[in-house]
C-alpha cells in the first residue's frame, strides 16, 4: 500500500503586490467554500510521520501571515502492483509530484516532477486526482494553492503478498537549505522574468554539466537530461533569500549546470563556465507560469455597500476576452443584462436603457466620452484599470443622473516594486506606459495614438477619411498626513477629416477632453473620508456639411465629498455630496428635426453661452444581522440647480440575505432621475422648460455558490420611466405667433425581464460563463398611447464565454453570442420633396419589424514569452470566426424604393503585440 504524504512544503510566497492586485478580483460576492479549520497548517497531523527519504524542493520560510495550508481529509492508498513486486528488482524510492489544491478541496494539475516507474507514477497520479483536501485559507477565505509531494514507495516483501508501505502523511515544513561554508564560487540574484522582482525561496542546484554548451538549456534538453537517472558526481544547493540573492560555495571549476526550481515558475537551467579563482555573478530570471499558485484570488468585499446586481470584471479577465481587442470597457457587453452594440461599438446598453440613460464613472466622476471613434477603443488604457463594476439597474444612492444603470471604472495605483512599463501595438493603435515608485508613493503614465487611418491610406491611397485619435493618462498617489493624496489626469482627442466627393467639400470632426482630478482619502478612527474635486475641459468641433456644423466648449468643475462611519460591525453609515458645474458655449448651425440638412435656408443657427449646475446629496445606512441578512436604505436628493431649478428626491432600498449554504437572496429598488439630453432643452432647438426624466427600478435575484468555483445566478427586473423628453410637433401661440414647442416631457417607457448566469471563476484553468437575458424594452410618446418596442430591445441575448489557460503560457478564449435582431422601422416608399430634391421616407409602424438575429463566434489566442527581464505578449483576436453574415442595419436607396443590408464585420483577425518590462 502506498500513501502520499501531505503537503510537504508550502509554496506560498505571496508577495504583497499580488494581494493588492487580486483584491476584489473575480466573483467575490459569490465565492464560498468550506469553513477553514483552526489547525496549524504547517504541522503534520499526529501519527503520520514524515517520509524518511523526503527531499525538500522548496522553502517555507516565505509563508505569509494569515495563510493556512491545505490538509488531506483522509490518507490516500495505492496498492503496489503485483507484477512489479514479482520482478527481481522491484522499483523503490520516491515519486516527487506537484499538484494544485483548489479552494474547494479538490485536486488538479497533478504533475510528476520526478518519477520512479511509469506504472507506479500513473497509479499515484490517479489516486491523488481523487484525493480531497481541506483547502488552504488566506485570512479565513479559501484559496487555491500548489503543493509539492514526495511519495516514498517500497515494494512488499517477496514472500508476502502486496501491498505495503505504512501510510505516510503530511510532512513538516522543510528547513531552508543551509549555505555550505567555504569560498563562494557563484553568487547571483533570482528575479521574476518581466517584472524583475526578487524571488525568495527559489532552490538553486549546481551539478556537473559535462560537455553541454554554455548558456540556457532548452526545455527539450531539460527533458532529455531528466531521463538520465545517473546520480551526479556532486551537487551543491542554495536557496534564494528575500532579496533574491543566493550563493553557491565550493563548486569546482568547469562547466556547471545551474537548476532553478520554484513551484509556480518554469524550471530554469543554465550552463555556466567556472574558471580558476573566478567568482561568477549573474542575474537569473524565472518565468511565472499561467497556472501559477500566485494567481490566488483573495475574495474581499467592496468598500462600498453591496448592490443588488453588481458584476465585477477584473482587468486580467477583461484583457483576454475574445472580441474586445483587449479593451476593458468593450468586454462588459459579455455580461447578462448588457445589450450588444452594433458593429462592435462600445455603446453601453443596460437592461433595455439607451446609452444616454446610463452613467459611466471613472475615478468617482462621470465621463462624457467613453470611446474613441466607432467604439474602437475606450479612452482609458486598460492596463491602468483595476476593475469595472457594472450595475445594470437599481443602483445605490452614491450614483445619480441616470435612469438606466451605472458602470464604475476603477483606476489602480502605480506599482511600487520598481520601475515597469510596456509598449504595445495592434492594427488600430500603439502606445506605451511606465510606472514606478515616487518617494513613498507611486506614479503611472501612458499615452496611445491610433494609426488605423495611416494604415488605411497605405492600403488605399484613395481613402479620403482619415480618423486618428490619441489619449493620455497620468496617475500619482502619495501618502500625505493621515491619508493618501491622488492625482489623476487623462484626456483624449479624436480627429476625423475627409472630403465629400459629391460636393468637393471637406468635412471634419474633432472631439476631445482633458481632465484632472484630485483625491484625498483618510481614516480617523471608525471614520473614512473622501474629498475629490476635479476639472474637465470638453471641446468639440464638427462640420458634417456646410449647413450642419457645431462648435462646443465646456469647462466643468466636479466634486465628491464623502464620509463613512462604521461604529460596529453590524452598522455603517455613509453621507456624501456629488455634483458638477459647467460653463459652456456653443455655436450650432443645424436643421430642425423634419428638414433636410442640405438646404441653407432651412438651417437654424444658435450661439449661446450658459452654465449648468447639478448635483446630489446622498446618504445610506447598512444594517447587518448575524444571520446574514443586511439591508441598506438610502436616499439621494438630486438638484438640477441651474437653469432648470428643479429638485428630485430619490429614495432607494437594497437588501440581501446570505445563507451558510452559499445561497444569497437579493432585492432592491428605488427612484432615479436624470437631466434630459441637451437637444431637448437648448433654446431654439429644444424646449428650455423641459424638466428631469424619472424612473423607478425594482429587481430581485438569487445566487448559489457551487463546488469547483461554479455559481449560478438568476435575476428579475422591472424598470419604468416617465417624464421622458421626446420631440414633438405640437405648437403654442406666443404673441399671436404659432411656435413649435420642439420637445416635451410626455414620453414614458418600461423594461422588464430576467437574467441567468452560470459561471466558473476566472481563477480556474478552464473558466467562463453562460449568460442569458430575456427582456422587453418599450416606450411611448404620450400617456394613453400603446407602448412600442424601443430601439434598445434585445429580447434574447445568449453569451457563452470560455477561457482556457494552457501550458507554456498559452491561453485560448472563445465567445459565442446569439442576440435578437435590432428593431427597425419598415420603409415602404419615398416622397420627392421639391424644395430640396431629396426624398422623405414613408415610414411604417415604428420599430414594427426586427432585423434577423445576430450570431457570432470570436476566438482569441494569447501567448507570453519571457526573455530575462522582458515579457513579450502577443494575441490574435479573431472576430466572427465562421464569417457569419449578420445584418446590423438596412440602408435604403435615395428614393426608398430599394434597400440593402448593412452587414457587421466579416471574419476579422486582429493581432496585438506587447513588450513589458
Amino acid at each position, binding site marked *: 500500500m502506498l500513501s502520499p504524504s501531505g503537503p510537504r512544503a508550502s509554496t506560498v510566497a505571496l508577495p504583497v503586490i499580488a494581494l493588492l492586485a487580486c483584491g476584489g478580483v473575480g466573483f467575490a460576492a459569490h465565492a464560498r467554500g468550506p469553513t477553514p479549520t483552526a489547525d496549524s497548517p504547517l504541522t503534520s497531523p499526529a501519527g503520520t510521520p514524515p517520509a524518511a527519504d523526503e527531499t525538500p524542493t522548496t522553502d517555507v520560510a516565505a509563508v505569509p501571515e494569515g495563510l493556512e495550508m491545505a490538509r488531506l481529509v483522509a490518507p490516500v492508498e495505492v496498492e503496489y502492483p503485483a507484477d512489479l513486486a514479482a520482478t527481481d528488482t522491484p522499483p523503490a524510492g520516491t515519486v516527487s509530484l506537484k499538484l494544485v489544491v483548489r479552494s474547494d478541496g479538490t485536486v488538479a494539475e497533478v504533475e510528476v516532477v520526478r518519477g520512479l516507474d511509469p506504472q507506479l507514477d500513473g497509479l499515484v497520479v490517479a489516486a491523488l486526482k481523487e484525493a480531497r483536501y481541506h483547502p488552504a485559507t488566506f485570512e479565513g477565505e479559501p484559496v487555491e494553492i500548489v503543493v509539492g509531494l514526495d511519495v516514498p514507495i517500497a515494494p512488499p516483501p517477496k514472500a508476502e503478498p502486496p501491498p505495503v508501505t505504512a501510510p505516510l502523511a503530511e510532512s513538516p515544513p522543510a528547513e531552508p537549505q543551509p549555505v555550505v561554508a567555504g569560498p563562494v564560487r557563484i553568487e547571483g540574484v533570482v528575479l521574476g522574468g518581466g517584472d524583475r522582482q526578487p524571488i525568495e525561496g527559489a532552490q538553486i542546484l549546481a551539478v556537473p554539466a559535462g560537455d553541454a554548451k554554455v548558456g540556457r538549456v532548452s526545455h527539450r534538453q531539460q527533458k532529455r537530461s531528466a531521463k538520465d537517472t545517473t546520480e551526479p558526481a556532486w551537487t551543491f544547493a542554495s536557496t534564494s533569500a528575500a532579496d533574491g540573492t543566493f550563493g553557491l560555495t565550493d563548486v569546482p571549476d568547469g562547466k556547471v549546470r545551474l537548476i532553478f526550481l520554484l513551484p509556480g515558475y518554469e524550471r530554469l537551467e543554465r550552463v555556466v563556465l567556472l574558471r580558476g579563482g573566478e567568482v561568477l555573478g549573474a542575474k537569473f530570471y524565472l518565468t511565472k507560469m499561467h497556472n501559477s499558485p500566485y494567481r490566488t484570488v483573495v475574495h474581499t468585499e467592496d468598500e462600498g455597500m453591496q448592490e443588488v446586481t453588481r458584476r465585477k470584471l477584473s482587468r486580467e479577465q477583461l484583457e483576454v476576452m475574445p472580441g474586445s481587442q483587449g479593451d476593458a470597457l468593450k468586454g462588459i457587453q459579455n455580461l447578462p443584462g448588457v445589450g450588444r452594440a452594433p458593429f462592435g461599438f462600445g455603446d453601453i446598453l443596460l437592461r433595455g436603457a439607451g446609452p444616454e440613460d446610463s452613467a459611466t464613472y471613472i475615478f468617482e466622476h462621470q465621463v462624457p466620452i467613453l470611446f474613441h471613434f466607432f467604439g474602437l477603443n475606450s479612452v482609458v488604457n486598460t492596463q491602468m484599470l483595476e476593475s469595472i463594476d457594472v450595475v445594470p439597474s437599481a443602483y445605490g444612492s452614491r450614483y445619480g443622473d441616470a435612469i438606466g444603470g451605472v458602470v464604475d471604472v476603477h483606476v489602480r495605483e502605480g506599482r511600487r516594486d520598481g520601475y515597469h512599463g510596456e509598449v504595445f501595438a495592434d492594427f488600430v493603435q500603439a502606445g506605451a506606459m511606465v510606472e514606478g515608485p515616487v518617494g513613498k508613493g507611486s506614479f503611472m503614465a501612458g499615452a496611445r495614438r491610433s494609426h488605423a487611418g495611416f494604415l488605411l491610406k497605405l492600403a488605399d491611397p484613395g481613402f479620403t477619411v482619415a480618423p486618428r485619435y490619441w489619449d493620455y493618462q497620468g496617475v500619482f498617489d502619495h501618502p500625505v498626513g493621515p491619508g493618501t493624496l491622488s492625482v489623476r489626469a487623462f484626456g483624449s482627442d479624436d480627429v476625423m477629416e475627409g472630403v465629400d466627393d459629391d*460636393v468637393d467639400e471637406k468635412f471634419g470632426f474633432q472631439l476631445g477632453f482633458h481632465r484632472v482630478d484630485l483625491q484625498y482619502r483618510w481614516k480617523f478612527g471608525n471614520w473614512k473620508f473622501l474629498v475629490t474635486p476635479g476639472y474637465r475641459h470638453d471641446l468639440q468641433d464638427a462640420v458634417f456639411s456646410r449647413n450642419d456644423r457645431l462648435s462646443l466648449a465646456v469647462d466643468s468643475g466636479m466634486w465628491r465629498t464623502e464620509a463613512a462611519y462604521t461604529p460596529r460591525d453590524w452598522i455603517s453609515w455613509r453621507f456624501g455630496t456629488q455634483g458638477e458645474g459647467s460653463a459652456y458655449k456653443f455655436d450650432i448651425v443645424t436643421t430642425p428635426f423634419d428638414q433636410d440638412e442640405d438646404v441653407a435656408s432651412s438651417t437654424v443657427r444658435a450661439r449661446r453661452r450658459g452654465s449648468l449646475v447639478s448635483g446630489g446629496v446622498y446618504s445610506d445606512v447598512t444594517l447587518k444581522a448575524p444571520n446574514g441578512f443586511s439591508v441598506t436604505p438610502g436616499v439621494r436628493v438630486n438638484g438640477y440647480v441651474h437653469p432648470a431649478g428643479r429638485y428630485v428626491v430619490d429614495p432607494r432600498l437594497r437588501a440581501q440575505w446570505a445563507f451558510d449554504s452559499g445561497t444569497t437572496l437579493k432585492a432592491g429598488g428605488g427612484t432615479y432621475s436624470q437631466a434630459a439630453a441637451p437637444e431637448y432643452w437648448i433654446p431654439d432647438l429644444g424646449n428650455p422648460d423641459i424638466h428631469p426624466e424619472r424612473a423607478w427600478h425594482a429587481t430581485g435575484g438569487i445566487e448559489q455558490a457551487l463546488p469547483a468555483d461554479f455559481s449560478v445566478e438568476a435575476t428579475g427586473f422591472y424598470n419604468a420611466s416617465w417624464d421622458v423628453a421626446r420631440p414633438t410637433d405640437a405648437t403654442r401661440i406666443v404673441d399671436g405667433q404659432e411656435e413649435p414647442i420642439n420637445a416635451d416631457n410626455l414620453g414614458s417607457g418600461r423594461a422588464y425581464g430576467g437574467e441567468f448566469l452560470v459561471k466558473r471563476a476566472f481563477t480556474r484553468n478552464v473558466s467562463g460563463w453562460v449568460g442569458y437575458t430575456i427582456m422587453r424594452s418599450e416606450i411611448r410618446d404620450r400617456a394613453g398611447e400603446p407602448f412600442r418596442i424601443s430601439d434598445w430591445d434585445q429580447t434574447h441575448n445568449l453569451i457563452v464565454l470560455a477561457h482556457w489557460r494552457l501550458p507554456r503560457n498559452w491561453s485560448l478564449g472563445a465567445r459565442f453570442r446569439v442576440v435578437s435582431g435590432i428593431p427597425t422601422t419598415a420603409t415602404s416608399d419615398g416622397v420627392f*420633396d421639391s424644395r430640396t430634391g431629396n426624398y422623405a421616407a414613408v415610414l411604417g409602424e415604428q420599430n414594427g419589424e426586427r432585423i434577423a438575429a445576430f450570431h457570432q463566434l470570436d476566438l482569441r489566442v494569447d501567448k507570453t514569452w519571457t526573455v530575462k527581464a522582458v515579457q513579450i505578449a502577443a494575441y490574435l483576436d479573431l472576430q466572427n470566426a465562421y464569417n457569419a453574415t449578420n445584418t446590423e442595419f438596412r440602408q435604403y436607396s435615395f428614393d426608398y424604393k430599394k434597400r440593402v443590408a448593412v452587414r457587421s464585420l466579416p471574419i476579422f483577425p486582429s493581432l496585438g503585440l506587447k513588450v513589458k518590462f
Partner: protein
Amino acid sequence: MSRTIASFCARGLPPLVLASACAELPREELIEYARPLALVAHVTDDAELTAPGETHDPTLATANTFLPADTGELRVLIADPDGIVDPTRIDQDFVACLRSPLEEAHSCVREGLRANASPPPCTEVPDDHMAPATVCTLEMDESDSFLFPLHPSLAQGRELTMGYFAGIDRPAADCIEVMASGADKLPDDCLYATHALPLGPPDAVAERLQALGVEFELPEGLPAQDRGLNPAVSTIQVRVGTTEDNATPLEVTSGQAVEVGPGQQVWVAVDYTDGSEQPYREPVAGTDDVTELEETLLTRWYATQGEFDAILNRGLLAETRWSPDEDGSSSLPADIFAIGRDGRWGGTWIHLRIVPSP
C-alpha cells in the same frame, strides 16, 4: 453636461459608417425610371417681374412668393431613361393642405386625403375649414396656371403645402385614390411629390387682403421681407473634348443638343445671375431678434447615363464633368439635367441633350 458631448458625438457619425453600403444601391444621379426632378412655381401676374402671359424665360428671375389671389404657373420636370417625359403622357393633380409648423408635408397630404378622399377645389373651401390636415385641390388650366386661393388663415402658415400626383399613361386621380385608401406605397407609374407655395411678404399679404376686403390682422414680429425669387441661369458653358485642356468651349442654352465624339467628355458650367442667392430674414423664436441670412444655391446634376465628377454644387457657379458610359458615344443620346434650388422653394433647371457627333 456630460451627456451634451456624447449626444452631439452621435450626430453625423452613423452616416459615415453606413456610406460603404451605398455602393450597392442605385445612384441618385442616374435616371433609371420615370421620376420627378423638379417642381417650380412662379407668379405670372407680377407686373414688376414678368409681363402677364409671357412665357417663362429661365434667364429672368421670377417671383415665387405669392399673394392671395395671385395667379401662378407650375412647371414640373419629369424624366425617364429616354429624357424628358412627353407631357401628353402625364396626367397631374395638386392637392393642397395647410400644415402645422413641424408636420411633414407628406403627412399633411396623406392624412387629409384619408379624411376626405374627394377634396373640393381650394377656391370653394370656406376659410374656417383650412385647418391642418384639411385638403383641397388646386385647379390648373391648360397652361398649368392656377389661382392662388384666397384664405386669410394662410397668412398664419406662411406657405401653402401641396401634394403633386402624376400618372404616367394613367389618370392622376387613380393615384390620389390609392393614397386616400390608406396605402403607403403608390403604384410605380404614379409619381408623387410635395411642394409648397410660399406666401409673402407679410406686409404685402396684409395689403392685398385689405384691398380685397378681407379682415386680416398681420401677426407681430414678422420681419420685413423682399419677395422671394426663383434663381435664374445667366450662361451655360459646355466644353467637349478628350481632356479638359483640348476641350472646345461652347455657350449653349437649355434644351440644346451637344455633340460628343468617341472618347470625349463634357465639362458643363452653369452661371446663375447675380441676386439668385437672396438675403432674407428669419425671426428668432421667443425673442424679438431677427436673423439675417442668405440663400445658398444648391445644384444637383442628373443624367440618363454616364458619370459625373460632382453631383452637387453650391453657389452661383455650378460645374462638373460628365463622362459617357464605357461603351461611349454608341450609347448616345443621353440627357443631362442641372437643377438649381435656393432652399426657399425657388428653383430652375437646365437640360442638355448629348448626341453623337456625325
